[in-house]
């Protein structure tokens, strides 16, 4: 028997948006945890403040430096945390960030099929679509179709690697440096590095092109 086992003499409001129940659940959970002394409200606020203060601009600085400095790129690929600290960036608490490099023969894209694991410390909060069920399921079952919808057409001979970050590792894609950017400085290069290109679902902007963001 369910709580719905009653006479239907009242109208049921259809649930149109599942954000609201989720927000209500989070609020009630927070209240209980605060009441039990498990967390303090100030800690939650501090954590949220930290999270929303992060942005893709941090990841873009890492990528731009890697484009201009091959030795730095090697350090970024072998230990992204150390490389971030080297640029004065905050790589965040425990999850380990691993950087992977897109090259002419190999393209990486990142998904978390189980939830929404994402290198938040270096990219900020994930985009809405990254957390959506269609992206999470289709990124592993039809990745080339998903990429095409994002405007990335991969040649058949390019090896596509879809990284499903199911555990402790957060993946950051180093996209390919666009052609025609040889004369650009590091800051100009960083401006071309979009959030989506560091998830692997877009190429960086071309020089002179307004950045595309989904």
């Amino acid at each position, binding site marked *: 028997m369910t709580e719905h086992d009653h006479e239907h003499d009242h109208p049921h409001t259809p649930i149109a948006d599942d954000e609201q129940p989720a927000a209500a659940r989070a609020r009630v959970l927070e209240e209980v945890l605060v009441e039990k002394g498990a967390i303090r409200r100030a800690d939650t606020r501090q954590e949220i403040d930290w999270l929303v203060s992060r942005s893709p601009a941090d990841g873009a600085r890492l990528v731009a430096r890697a484009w201009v400095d091959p030795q730095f790129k090697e350090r970024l690929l072998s230990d992204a945390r150390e490389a971030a600290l080297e640029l004065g960036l905050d790589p965040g608490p425990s999850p380990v960030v691993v950087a992977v490099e897109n090259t002419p023969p190999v393209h990486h894209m990142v998904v978390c099929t189980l939830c929404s694991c994402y290198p938040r410390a270096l990219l900020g909060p994930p985009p809405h679509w990254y957390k959506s069920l269609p992206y999470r399921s289709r990124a592993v*079952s039809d990745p080339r179709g998903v990429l095409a919808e994002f405007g990335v057409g991969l040649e*058949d001979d390019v*090896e*596509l690697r879809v990284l*499903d*970050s199911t*555990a*402790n*590792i957060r993946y950051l894609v180093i996209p390919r440096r666009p052609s025609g950017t040889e004369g650009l400085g590091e800051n100009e290069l960083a401006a071309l590095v979009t959030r989506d290109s560091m998830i692997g679902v877009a190429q960086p902007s071309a020089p002179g092109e307004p950045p595309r963001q989904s």
Partner: protein
Amino acid sequence: MTFQAGQRVRVAARAHEGHHRTPAYVKGKSGRVERIHGAFTNPETRAYGGDGLPEQRLYLVGFDPSDLWPGSGGQTRDRVQVDIYEHWLEDAG
């Protein structure tokens, strides 16, 4: 059992009551160890207030998409790479 890079491994097909980080679409499937990340506490006990010990090695395992999605075929060099804890893996020769 510890696995080496390049080794063929199979993901255990077992069910698991409660929180775990092994996606259903790779259970029972075989792939190859592509990277060894190190050892981490086990989320299956940590999720319930446990200490997550002993730590489990975490591997990046690469799968051929046609093994995951029968009938997909096509792009033979593409791979789906998934992080999987050691206690979910077995040697697949």
